[in-house]
């Protein structure tokens, strides 16, 4: 009985097995890279806002404290987007007629809210609370980046679960004294490791097991 397959099929089958495995590995690597890429996480994507509000100007150049507008950041899960009234506190005195501020004035006149485009969006199944982070000495800059240098507000970090866990597994190096939380340029002085240990104890940061427990964030 003649052979069904030609001799060359031996080589061909070996090569195709290796090729298939390689393809699988390359594909999954590609998926991983794409999944973490800013294209998917929407990092550094400046969104078009109804008012061209510049954090670089207000927080950076003018040095307005974050908490002047984001009032509830220390006490509630939601940092709070300021009501139009907060804008008008200053803008009824300065830049009164500026056309760029017309949506703000219109909102104040009519009572209709300004529809800001959301920049940071966590999945609904992840619970996040601003107040606990701020009160435990995690600075704004840790998650939001150099907001004081953003003419347009964008998301600076990937906000992926792996990124959350990086810090929850090793919180010490991300801590700072509570009174430096809003400082964008704070640098530790002296013994960095000693300070981290001190703050970790002082603020009663929970153990890594508790911080990385599923139900800490997925309630």
């Amino acid at each position: 009985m003649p052979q069904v397959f030609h001799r060359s099929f031996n080589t061909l089958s070996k090569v195709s097995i290796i090729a298939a495995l390689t393809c699988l590995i390359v594909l999954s690597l590609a998926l991983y890279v794409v999944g973490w890429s800013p294209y998917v996480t929407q990092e550094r994507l400046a969104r078009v806002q109804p008012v061209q509000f510049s954090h670089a100007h207000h927080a950076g150049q003018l040095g307005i404290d974050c908490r002047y507008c984001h009032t509830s950041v220390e006490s509630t899960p939601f940092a709070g987007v300021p009501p139009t009234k907060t804008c008008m506190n200053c803008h009824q005195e300065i830049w009164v007629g500026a056309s760029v501020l017309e949506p703000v004035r219109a909102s104040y006149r009519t009572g209709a809210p300004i529809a800001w485009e959301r920049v940071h969006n966590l999945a609904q199944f992840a619970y996040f609370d601003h107040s606990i982070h701020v009160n435990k000495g995690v600075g704004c800059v840790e998650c939001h980046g150099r907001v004081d240098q953003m003419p347009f507000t964008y998301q600076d970090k990937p906000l992926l679960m792996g990124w959350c866990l990086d810090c929850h597994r090793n919180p010490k190096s991300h801590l700072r004294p509570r009174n430096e939380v809003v400082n964008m340029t704070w640098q530790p002085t002296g013994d960095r490791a000693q300070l981290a240990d001190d703050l970790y104890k002082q603020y009663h940061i929970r153990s890594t097991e508790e911080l990385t427990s599923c139900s800490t964030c997925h309630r």
Partner: protein
Amino acid sequence: MKECHSNSTDRSVPEQIRKRHWRALEELASSPQFQEMLEREFPRHASEWNDPFTRRKFLMLMGASFALAGMSGCSPQAPIGEILPYAKQPEQMVPGRALQFASAATLGGYATGILVKSHEGRPTKIEGNPNHPASLGATDAFTQAEILGLYDPDRSQAITYRGQPRSWSDAQIEFRKSLDALRTEQGRGLVILSSTITSPTLADQLTGQTSRFKHDFPAARWFQFEPAHSNNGHEGARLALGEPLDTLYDFTSADVIISLDADFLGVGPAHLRSARDFSTKRRSAAAPGGPAMNRLYVAESAPSVTGSAADHRFPIRAADVEQFALSLASELQLPGLSRANAKYERLVAAIAKDLNAHRGASVVIAGETQPPIVHAIAHALNDTLGNVGHTVRYIAPVEVNPRDQIADLKTLTEDMSAGHVQMLIILGGNPVYDAPADLEFAKQLQHVPQRVHLGLYQDETSALCDWHLPQAHFLEAWGDARAFDGTVSIQQPLIAPLYNGVSAI
């Protein structure tokens, strides 16, 4: 195989010999219509797809477009939503943080103090108000469910006249016309039918000194009807004390409690408070060195919450409770009573002994379903045992006008059938559905020329009324009501009326 095949097709075999099976009567009759139907794939009037664009191709394209529609979800650059802050943020309002408002929910007219949780101006949860005497922080299932009632999409949403939507000004013009006509006759023929009212404000509007209703329509009448209402307690008090008083019990200091078919831990306007007081006494007794534990005897006709908490539970027929009470009374030497019913002799002897040992610290409580005489016996027993002033207190009735509502409704239906009622205004409730069937309320209602219904729902009553006005939920309007012990509670609105409802006030 060949034989078989030829057998079914061979034309040479005569028709009569070939075995013919028929599968339907029409086939046996073999009418031309049936033949046509057999030949056509689709019925005659079904549209046929003569397009070159076939069904198969259509499904293929649809499937592809669905799959591609899913792909659009993969685009990560799409907007992720808006944040809409307040233009002027109300004081105390912090987005993401709930506020609590004190209000009161009513059931059968009686108030229970509540705390309503509100997220960004929307009430979301009802819990008891710890500072309210009728609640002490507890609520019942009905009160919990009120939040669902508020957002119920089946609530009536528009003013209607015989089912057709009308504007509020239309209704006002119409009512003014009718009321002006009635005013010239002192309001004769004008009747208001409401549910049980404890609200001081409504009471003042209906019967007060400065009431415009009273002034303009002196001959108008006001009836109340509540489907689950009993006047037995008031009648019993009238028999025993001469006045229809309300009775308050202090279960925190009662050592022995006799319930005569009273489910005081499970139902009634005071049950939350009673349950809390009763269990407080039990718990404090459990503490080392605490007071003696209370003892609960329950004679009841159906299993109840109170019966399940009883130390001694006697299942007896509802009709026998009176005999049981009389036996107990004669055992305790209440004057003017014959000897105890032999059936309960041993039982009441033991209870009487316990009661005698706890004079001034016991409670005899009669159930609302029991006739007035049982209530009267309970009052007499409490008096004999020296409980009045200690564990039992009497207060003026909380209801604005405590009456036998069934008798009143009977009067009303008789008047309706006699044509004495010109205009009937039904404030809340659904009497067409829940009035006693013997009164034929629905039938007599149709003798009333002008019928107005204010209610939360388009129901049986509104179907028989000309005008229907959507009622504001108690979380949407100001109001007030009194609790079982007379505490006046304010109802404050948490949200503007969702469906432009109006309140009875």
